[in-house]
């Protein structure tokens, strides 16, 4: 039996991989290669030296500088593979340069194009204002004033302008024409009005075409405007405002023939520019496609290099500055592979010194790594969502299910009370069984960690406590089922606490129940201090013993039998805070005692789920399907059938399954796993190119 348990306690399938802390001593010249080979292997996690916080910031900076210099300086000509990277770098910078030049060229072209286009639009739109105003001055005035009325309702202003127009028509009236973003037009107009105190006339017309904004590459709606005003001072002001609002001003000649001529010129230059622009865009697209062809590969490569240097940065320089020292975790099964990769790196980089790879004694707890395949991965992820297993913690379990009930209960008056009682009892049986299993698993955990303290002062009292109360309840349930007794179990359980010595009367299920109850109650009461007090005191004693040993210089590190040494104490080697440990143990005990009650009650959710399911299906069957079938109308029957089918598929199958899954998950995580699974480990994150690439994506 002992042997069986020994074999069982390793439970290789269910435990995470055994990890060992290893140290790498790598000569500088093969460092780059070694690290990149390890990355390909993906089976070593480097302990982030930064996080250790021990290395001073200056040394890291220094180290970084040296590594950076080591890459570039000719002192280490052995760093062959970097040439590839350097070539790539040159290539990339060439490409970048080319692209920037192309962009600036096309931007310039685009700007001239825009200007010309705007000029053309201004010519067309503003020209029409001017033509009419020159040829039919009076008509234009009327039109203008109408325009003003309809646009701004500035009554006084328009009349003023009219007067002014008449007086300065031939001599002083000037105008500025230009184009502005539609969104700014209103504010622009208001500003002009304020600046000239109303002595101006603002005419606008939508540009019709949308013009590309060279900065944001968005199409912007613009408005053509013509401002009539008089006086030199007003002119400078208006020009300044135009500048401030980013309005582009273009001169429009008064003369009609000149206007036409300029329009023609502008149009021809526009079409020329269009051709050039198109050619430029085609050229640019070609260059971009050729770059895009290699892009993924390059990004991959640069990402790898970056990962390698990031890892190299994590390595410590040793005293002589010739070697890099790194520490990391690796699963034991992968050691050979890692050594092989390191050897390959040494050979490939022609280094005279081999890479030293040796296993160190681990003081911290190692990371957690489960080898998974596609099937188990999903389950493992669900467990990880709760927390990473403390290394090697046991996990994996599923809830069992199907049972059957005599169909003759169906439809009888006492169907519901019977089923409820049956289901509740089954839930409790299941719950007690699963919680017991959880506690037993904690035994294997403690055994695995060689932690006899946990077995003696945690596992044993927990078993006693749970089984003397709820194990006893389960026993009563089974006896009641077997004997068909009429005893009231609630009554039995409650009076077991309230008056344990009183006679049970009708509720006695078997002979000797009363003394048994007293014994169980005493056992449960004893179990509570048992799990509360001894462990912290023993930990304290062990610690002070070890501290005394430290005074004598730790001659033989293996002086202590590792089996007698509790795992948590080993971690807390440096300082031991008794009150903290005690409070922790107290919380743990209270949690267990209260948890025993609440967790058992929590398993009643199995009954609740089952009840909800059966009630819902009854309702849908009787109130929808049978009701609809009662009518002799095919349409109603069909509708009833459709509703029933819908309810079955979406409510009974989908939603109920989901809620059953969630409740089962909760029972699994909380009620089952809290007995043995701490979830306080951290995940094994090996240095691997495959993972780095995934991260980038």
């Amino acid at each position, binding site marked *: 039996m002992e042997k069986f348990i020994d074999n069982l306690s390793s439970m290789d399938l269910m435990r995470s991989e055994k990890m060992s802390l290893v140290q790498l001593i790598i000569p500088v010249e093969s460092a780059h290669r070694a690290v990149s080979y390890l990355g390909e292997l993906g089976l070593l996690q480097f302990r982030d030296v930064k996080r250790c916080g021990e290395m001073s*910031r*200056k040394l890291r*900076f220094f180290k970084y500088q040296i590594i950076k210099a080591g890459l570039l300086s000719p002192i280490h000509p052995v760093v062959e593979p970097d040439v590839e990277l350097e070539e790539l770098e040159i290539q990339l910078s060439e490409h970048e340069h080319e692209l920037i030049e192309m962009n600036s060229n096309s931007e310039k072209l685009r700007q001239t194009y825009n200007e010309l286009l705007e000029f053309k639009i201004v010519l067309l739109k503003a020209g029409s204002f001017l033509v009419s105003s020159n040829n039919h001055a009076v008509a234009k005035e009327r039109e203008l004033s109408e325009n003003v009325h309809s646009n701004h309702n500035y009554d006084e202003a328009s009349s003023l302008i009219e007067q002014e127009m008449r007086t300065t028509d031939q001599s002083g009236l000037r105008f500025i024409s230009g184009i502005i973003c539609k969104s*700014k037009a209103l*504010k622009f107009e208001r*500003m002009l009005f*304020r*600046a000239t105190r109303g002595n101006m006339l603002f005419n606008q017309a939508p540009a019709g075409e949308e013009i590309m904004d060279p900065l944001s590459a968005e199409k912007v709606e613009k408005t053509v405007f013509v401002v009539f005003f008089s006086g030199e001072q007003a002119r400078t*002001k208006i020009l*300044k*405002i135009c*500048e*401030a*609002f*980013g309005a582009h001003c273009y001169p429009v000649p008064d003369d009609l023939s000149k206007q036409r001529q300029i329009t023609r010129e502008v149009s021809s230059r526009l079409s020329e520019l269009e051709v050039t622009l198109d050619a430029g865009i085609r050229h640019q697209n070609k260059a971009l496609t050729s770059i895009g062809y290699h892009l993924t590969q390059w990004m991959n490569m640069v990402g790898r290099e970056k990962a390698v240097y990031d890892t190299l940065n994590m390595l410590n320089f040793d005293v002589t500055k010739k070697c890099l020292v790194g520490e990391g975790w690796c699963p034991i099964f992968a050691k050979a592979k890692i050594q092989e990769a390191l050897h390959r790196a040494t050979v490939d980089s022609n280094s005279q010194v081999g890479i030293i790879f040796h296993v160190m004694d681990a003081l911290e707890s190692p990371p957690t790594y489960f080898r998974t395949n596609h099937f188990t991965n999903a389950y493992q992820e669900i467990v990880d969502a709760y927390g990473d297993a403390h290394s090697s913690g046991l996990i994996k379990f599923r809830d069992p299910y199907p049972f059957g009930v005599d169909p003759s209960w169906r439809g009888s008056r006492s169907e519901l009370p019977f089923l409820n009682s049956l289901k509740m009892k089954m839930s409790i049986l299941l719950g007690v069984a699963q919680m017991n299993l959880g506690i037993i698993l904690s035994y294997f955990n403690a055994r695995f960690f060689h932690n006899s303290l946990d077995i003696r002062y945690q596992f044993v009292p927990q078993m006693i406590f749970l089984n003397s109360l709820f194990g006893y309840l389960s026993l009563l349930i089974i006896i009641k089922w077997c004997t068909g007794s009429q005893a009231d179990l609630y009554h039995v359980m409650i009076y077991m606490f309230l008056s344990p010595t009183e006679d049970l009367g009708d509720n006695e299920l078997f002979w000797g129940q009363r003394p048994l109850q007293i014994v169980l109650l005493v056992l449960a009461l004893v179990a509570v201090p048992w799990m509360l007090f001894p462990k912290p005191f023993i930990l304290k004693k062990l610690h002070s013993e070890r501290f005394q040993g430290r005074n004598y210089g730790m001659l033989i590190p293996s002086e202590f039998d590792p089996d007698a040494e509790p795992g948590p104490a080993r971690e807390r080697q440096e300082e031991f805070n008794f009150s903290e440990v005690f409070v922790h143990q107290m919380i743990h005990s209270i949690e267990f005692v209260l948890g025993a009650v609440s967790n058992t009650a929590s398993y009643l959710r199995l009954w609740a789920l089952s009840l909800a399911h059966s009630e819902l299906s009854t309702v849908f069957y009787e109130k929808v399907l049978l009701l609809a079938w009662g009518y002799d109308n095919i349409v109603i029957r069909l509708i009833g059938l459709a509703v029933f089918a819908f309810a079955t598929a979406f409510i009974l199958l989908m939603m109920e399954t989901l809620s059953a899954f969630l409740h089962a998950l909760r029972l699994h995580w909380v009620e089952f796993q809290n007995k043995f699974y701490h979830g306080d480990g951290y995940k094994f994150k090996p240095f691997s190119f495959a993972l780095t690439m995934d991260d980038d994506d």
Partner: protein
Amino acid sequence: MYGFEAMTFNIHGGYLEAIVRGHRAGLLTAADYNNLCQCETLDDIKMHLSATEYGPYLQNEPSPLHTTTIVEKCTLKLVDEYKHMLCQATEPLSTFLEYITYGHMIDNVVLIVTGTLHERDVQELLEKCHPLGMFDSIATLAVAQNMRELYRLVLVDTPLAPYFSECITSEDLDDMNIEIMRNTLYKAYLEDFYKFCQKLGGATAEIMSDLLSFEADRRAVNITINSIGTELTRDDRRKLYSNFGLLYPYGHEELAVCEDIDQVRSAMEKYPPYQSIFSKLSYGESQMLDKAFYEEEVKRLCLAFEQQFHYGVFFAYMRLREQEIRNLMWISECVAQNQKSRVHDSVVFIF
């Protein structure tokens, strides 16, 4: 909401308070500053910043960096955060957030007006403006010749308009006038902001009155020191002091008559919070005063985060970030100009 913020604050302000506290947690730490101070080039600074929240804003900058780029990008991050918060905010928080930017608006107006006076290019000036203090027609400021025009043309549309009522004169703009205008505006702005916070009541009023009083007092001291030896009369000087704060009113009387820095010092030493600031300085020295004030301000801003359910955290966060950007600017400048020994002269650590 007086006295019962805790009950109702989270209905509208809870989300944003969480956001702003999250942002605050992203401020650079002592370790970050240590690393930054060790940098040899601006690229090193960029590398260190890439591990912080500034990373995404700097990662696409091509390698020969300039100090201005770093500062610009860091400010951009602040502006983005501010805009996000403003979008999410409801009244009265949105008004509160807008108040925070008015100070920058005043500075921008003064910058443009001074620049135009010295015939600088408007576009160049606009680039120097703080993005938080931008408003639509800011470029039009260049058109104005005197304060009346300035007000009538441009500022009447901005939230600064009410603050202008005190300083509308027909005098032409010159450096002195502009400086007086800036201080008058600031006075009006601080008083308005103070009144607004008092109206909000509760913890916001309590904390903001402390922060704004400090700001007002600091401005009073700065005005005094800067106006020593100028033609500003005592009465004019007193008019620029804000009408609240620890120094109001008796401290103002004393400051108004100060003729040199030591007199300012003796006036200020009567107030315990400022005594500690001045005790750090040697006699006759005013260079380090700014830093000492900034340090005190940072301390007070950090304290604002100790209390929950008030708007002071938004103000405090914006100010702390601005201080951080100033620090980054100083460090980058020192690194760029090879003056690393002076790095610690002006950096105010935020912890």
